[in-house]
């Protein structure tokens, strides 16, 4: 059974006059990799919103691990939180993801939510901060970091939840060489560990490296 399955999904924004996504179907097995391509405004971010249960298709169905994800399903807060725990989403603009006073608290937010013991929270947070080379920033305020550092903090904050699926919207945009290398290495490791990845990127090299299925939105 596919982990993610979209069946003829159509979505139009309330203020829009034509669908951003029209009759889109796709399926992705657990551990698979999907690379999204398309011009600006082709619906990549909208598709990510649908996959995260932030927008609901007006036609068609979205199934995650066999469950149909719609307004009714996510109206149960327990089911909604279990679903959100399984999908990690990195926004295109990390500025809008960081709302804690310290980098450490930002990354520790997820595991604390899960009610993990404080030692485990600390261990997971430190692991993720080290993974992206930002352990030295743990006492800094995320707001005052550079764009690339913010992106790495945002990704660490998503990963401490240990999601099953990672959705990345333009992951390499705004990163310097060190940041790009760290992230590329991480994504390769993520793939090798058999975890599911969906990424929108204009970077040919990253798409080739990850060797995933390519879906071009028009």
């Amino acid at each position, binding site marked *: 059974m596919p982990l993610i399955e979209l069946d003829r999904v159509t979505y139009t924004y*309330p*203020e829009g006059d034509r669908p951003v996504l029209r009759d889109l179907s796709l399926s992705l097995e657990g551990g698979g990799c999907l690379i999204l391509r398309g011009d600006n405004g082709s619906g990549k971010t909208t598709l990510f919103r649908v996959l*995260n249960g*932030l927008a609901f298709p007006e036609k068609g169905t979205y199934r995650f691990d066999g469950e149909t994800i719609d307004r009714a399903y996510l109206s149960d*807060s*327990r089911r*909604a*939180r*279990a679903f*959100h*725990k399984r*999908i990690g*989403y990195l*926004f295109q*603009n990390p*500025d*809008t*993801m*960081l*709302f*804690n*006073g310290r980098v450490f608290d930002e990354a520790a*937010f*997820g595991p*604390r*939510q*899960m*009610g993990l013991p404080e030692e485990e929270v600390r261990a*997971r947070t430190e*692991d*993720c901060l080290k*993974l992206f080379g930002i352990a030295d920033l743990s006492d800094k305020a995320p*707001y005052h970091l550079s764009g690339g550092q913010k992106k790495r903090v945002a990704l660490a*904050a*998503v*990963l401490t*939840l*240990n999601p*099953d699926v990672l959705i990345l919207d333009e992951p390499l945009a705004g990163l310097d060489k060190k940041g790009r290398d760290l992230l590329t*290495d*991480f994504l*390769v*490791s*993520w793939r*090798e*560990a058999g*975890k599911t990845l969906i990424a929108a990127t204009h970077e040919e090299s990253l798409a080739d490296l990850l060797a995933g299925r390519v879906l071009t939105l028009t």
Partner: protein
Amino acid sequence: MSDRLPAWMKGSDPYEPKGRGGTFAARTLRALAGAIGRLRFQQGREGRRPLPALFKLVLLLAGLLVLSLARKLMVPLFFTALVLVLICFLPGRDLLSVLVTGLFAAALSLVLMLPAMILAPETAFNCLFLVWKVFLSVLMVSLFNHTTQWNHITGALKRLHVPGILIFTLDLTLKYIVLLGRLVSDLLTAYLLRAVGKDRQACSSLGGVLGVTFLRGTEVSRETYEAMVCRGFTDDYGGL
């Protein structure tokens, strides 16, 4: 190469959320998205052949003046009939929004008038008359707002020789309400996606959202000022 990943990240967590949580953020997010949507909607929607904004604005101002000076019942009755006919042409969602705005203003003025009505019952009729006028005035302004694009309103204000600084301030205010509203909406979305348990620090997290919004607002205003300076602005608002 996957050795780079910590051991806990290679597997999956068996996680079952306990209790209820995250509903406050979800509700706030829905309300905020609706409010921003309405603001954007008001900026863009006009009929196929709209009346010139200047004409509508002059009519509105004259109507408000006549209504506020009226002492006979006939005038508010006439305006009630006129406004009710006009709002019937609005789409359902707009009609509801216009009516709710008017009713809210009327209810507020009624509450303010209540002490006067209780302490001096002979003034009750005049007080209710005033509440009715408030209801009609707000309804008229709201109707104008729902049927006229914002840039047409500012154009009309300019032609009425309203000072540039006022128009400029109104323009920027509306623009940044939408911009900062979107920022709050995104921050709450990020919060919602990661608030997978019972948040014992919900107030602190939401305080963080407001703090970031405030900082971003300050930054945006500084950037706007610098962009204006780069385009020749010399702190002289008279030329706007």
